[in-house]
């Protein structure tokens, strides 16, 4: 009953070249129209004294009919003897590129419609380029409106030669070219008697010949962690790592690795609801796992198998991007990157070249990426993320950029470039070379204060009482005559960070501000103490860099989120606050940060 195959097809092309007519025809000729729909459109035509057109079946919305163009992608369903199709009608009008992308990125194959009479237009090329970049592998070109050129073979061959040359330039090999008249029905469902020189497939035959993409079971296992669930309140103690398998397969008992945190565990069970127990999960399945060991993983990590080809981990990479944002993409602005299940703050580091997709002219000199540009550029995230280059794995090599709440661009990763100076390092170098120092020297402050300046970060998982220790340390140091200051992070949320809102995307910016604040307070000679829940390697490396040239000291209490970073001091969870403070003070003394400490 459910065995029928299904395929998503997108129809693209320049405005008025007849995409909707092709679909209307396909629906009508395969008998896929609900009775109500055809009658409603015929009735509307009769009321408005307009001739009935197949395109009207799709342009179901009122204002579309008024404008006479498809303003969004409409989906329609039809089937042939071979399989079921979802046809996505992507608008050809240039203003609606966003909709065309939405349609094409869901499709396995594309029909690209070109008006044989009007010839190749700007969007014929732009859409060809977009379809290729979005990863649609099978493209058939329909030379429409052959009735307007007298069903001429010469016109068809000329169009075929010209457009093939264009596609070759962008490394696309079309599956086929078909001469049609959608309005008259030629070569749609049956072979045209008026074009006997054409012996290839009709559109319907071609659709059935498209090959369905193989699910990528054989590829290395990739599982972007979408979320971690624990429904304790509903009396469920399972801790489930949930997501959709992007590639490959995994089985109970397999060792797994989480990136970029580098944590390892073993798959203990595969969880599901209302199914038989499962022993494995493979590409395409939305599933969940429990792990044999309790490790702390975050949503956004990439779960892989250590024995297989590994993904990249990095924060700087070369990409191909296409931009559809209202505002151009510019340097020194923070955007949000979404790749797989990971989200990161990202900046445009460099533009290598931009391409005008309609005429394929390229420019090396542009300073920004404008709407509808295709660009090769270098992006840098505030923290390393795990990904693949798109040549290796499409599903984990594609990303989008969010600007001002909107998806403004999308692209594919071409190369990992995690060497060389990062934007943060550049910033620190620039900041320090321009730092305006006062007349009081650091050593003078240390002598007068009888202690050196230090940025002390308490971290570890939530609820380990690290705040109590941090506050007690401040008090102890103060009572010993030292300039110590404890800052609760929540105070920053309501003050310095009030502009950031409560959204988790601004985590990178919050961290930057704490780091910059530490740079100032340690410069003032303070022992500056704060706490951060679950800081990981990158958090601490970032804070350390931001606090330069001053020193940072990291104290971890309880379970840590570090994989490589060794905290300066490890406190056992559950130890009395006073004892913990004594330990930290002794450590400060041993490191010659403070001279003396009396309890």
């Amino acid at each position: 009953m459910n065995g029928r195959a299904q395929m998503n097809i997108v129809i693209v092309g320049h405005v008025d070249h007849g995409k909707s007519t092709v679909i209307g025809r396909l629906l009508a000729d395969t008998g896929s129209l609900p009775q109500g729909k055809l009658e409603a459109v015929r009735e509307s035509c009769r009321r408005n004294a307009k001739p009935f057109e197949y395109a009207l079946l799709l342009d179901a919305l009122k204002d579309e009919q008024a404008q006479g163009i498809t303003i969004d992608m409409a989906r329609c369903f039809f089937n042939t003897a071979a399989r079921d199709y979802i046809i996505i009608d992507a608008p050809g009008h240039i203003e609606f590129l966003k909709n065309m992308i939405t349609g094409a990125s869901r499709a396995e194959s594309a029909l690209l419609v070109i008006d044989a009479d009007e010839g190749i237009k700007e969007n014929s090329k732009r859409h060809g380029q977009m379809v290729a970049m979005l990863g649609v592998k099978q493209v058939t070109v329909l030379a429409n409106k052959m009735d307007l050129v007298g069903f001429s073979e010469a016109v068809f061959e000329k169009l075929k030669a010209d457009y093939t040359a264009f596609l070759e330039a962008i490394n696309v090999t079309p599956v086929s070219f078909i001469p049609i008249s959608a309005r008259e029905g030629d070569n749609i469902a049956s072979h045209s008697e008026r074009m006997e020189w054409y012996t290839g497939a009709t559109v319907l035959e071609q659709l059935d010949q498209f090959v369905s993409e193989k699910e990528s079971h054989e590829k290395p296992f990739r599982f972007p962690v979408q979320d971690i669930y624990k429904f304790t309140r509903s009396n469920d103690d399972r801790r489930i790592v949930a997501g959709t398998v992007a590639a490959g397969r995994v089985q109970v008992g397999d060792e797994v690795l989480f990136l970029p945190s580098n944590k390892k565990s073993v798959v203990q069970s595969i969880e599901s609801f209302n199914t038989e127990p499962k022993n494995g999960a493979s590409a395409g399945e939305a599933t969940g796992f429990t792990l044999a060991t309790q490790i702390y993983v975050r949503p956004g990590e990439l779960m892989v198998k250590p024995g297989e080809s590994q993904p990249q981990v990095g924060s700087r990479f070369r990409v191909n991007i296409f931009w559809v944002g209202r505002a151009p993409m510019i340097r020194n602005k923070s955007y949000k990157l979404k790749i797989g299940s990971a989200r990161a703050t990202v900046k445009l580091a460099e533009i290598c070249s931009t391409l005008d997709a309609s005429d394929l002219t390229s420019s090396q000199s542009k300073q920004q990426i404008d709407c509808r540009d295709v660009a090769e550029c270098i992006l840098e995230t505030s923290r390393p993320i795990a990904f693949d280059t798109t040549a290796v794995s499409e599903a984990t090599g594609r990303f989008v950029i969010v600007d001002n709440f909107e998806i403004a661009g999308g692209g594919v990763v071409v190369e990992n470039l995690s060497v060389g100076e990062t934007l943060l390092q550049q910033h620190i170098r620039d900041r320090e070379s321009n730092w305006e120092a006062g007349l009081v020297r650091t050593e003078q402050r240390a002598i007068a204060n009888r202690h050196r300046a230090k940025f002390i970060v308490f971290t570890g998982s939530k609820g380990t009482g690290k705040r109590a220790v941090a506050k007690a340390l401040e008090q102890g140091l103060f009572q010993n005559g030292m300039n110590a200051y404890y800052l609760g992070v929540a105070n920053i949320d309501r003050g310095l960070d009030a502009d950031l809102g409560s959204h988790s995307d601004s985590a990178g910016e919050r961290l930057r501000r704490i780091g910059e604040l530490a740079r100032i307070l340690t410069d003032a000679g303070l022992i500056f103490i704060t706490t951060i829940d679950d800081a990981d390697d990158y958090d601490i490396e970032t804070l350390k860099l931001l606090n330069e040239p001053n020193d940072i000291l990291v104290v971890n209490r309880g379970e840590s989120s570090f994989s490589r970073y060794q905290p300066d001091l490890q406190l056992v969870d559950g130890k009395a606050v006073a004892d913990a403070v004594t330990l930290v003070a002794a450590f400060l003394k041993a490191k010659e940060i403070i001279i003396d400490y009396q309890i």
Partner: protein
Amino acid sequence: MDHLDKLEAQSVYILREAYREFKSLCMLWSIGKDSTVMLWLARKAFFGHVPIPLVHIDTHYKIPEMIAYRDRFALEWNLNMIYGENSEALAEKQTFPDGNTDRLTCCKYLKSEALKHTLSGEWPRYRMNHDERRYVVDEGREPYTGVIVGVRADEEGSRSKERYFSPRDKDNVWDVGDQPPEFWNQFKTDFAPGTHVRIHPLLDWTEQNIWEYIEREKIPVVSLYFNQGEGTRYRSLGCYPCTNPVLSDAQTVPEIIDELKSGKFSNIAERSGRAQDSEDGGLETLRRDGYM
């Protein structure tokens, strides 16, 4: 994976994405077959749990079986069940059955307005108290910023244009002509203050897929969908004054599937029994104004 597995996986992905990104999230449950399948998919996504409140707009003209069914499963599946209503329009009898408005205006008052104000928290929300097994006025008045809705693209023209994640502005208005792009499986999960996002996990499902999935999973649906011996059944559920049963002998889910595939309904639109659709502007006018 077969076709239903793929549809299920995509819907589960969307539900998890919504749950991850929207702090104040709810799911609309009309009690009909589509949103009941959606509720089932949430149990799939969250491994038997439904960590999202379910909101039902009660027009008080719903067929009584629907309300009984709602409350039964709210208790049985431990749902965080909420309903809202337009008590003012009901009290003043500003409805079509009372003869004081036309059908579309009645829909606007009892559904669109009630929904808008229940989502925003301006009007009272009634929450199922599982200990007392009855509804009590809910303390929570926080506006929902993510609203999961079970519309399908094949239902009618305007719904075929929807995105999986579809923004609505402060006045609940849907700008059909300027929607955000959806690349691959990345959706609009960021939203400006005061706006909200409608989430559509069932967009790619057809009416037939819904019934096939109900059959496969053995999902309990309201008995109104089946012929109880009188030769009629409901194909689409709504308020009793405006929803008519269709002539059908189908008494089981497989019989319904046969009817849709090759039988009498294989080429008749699903909402043909819904009277408000044939009035001027119909569903599209309602939807622009916040109707689902």
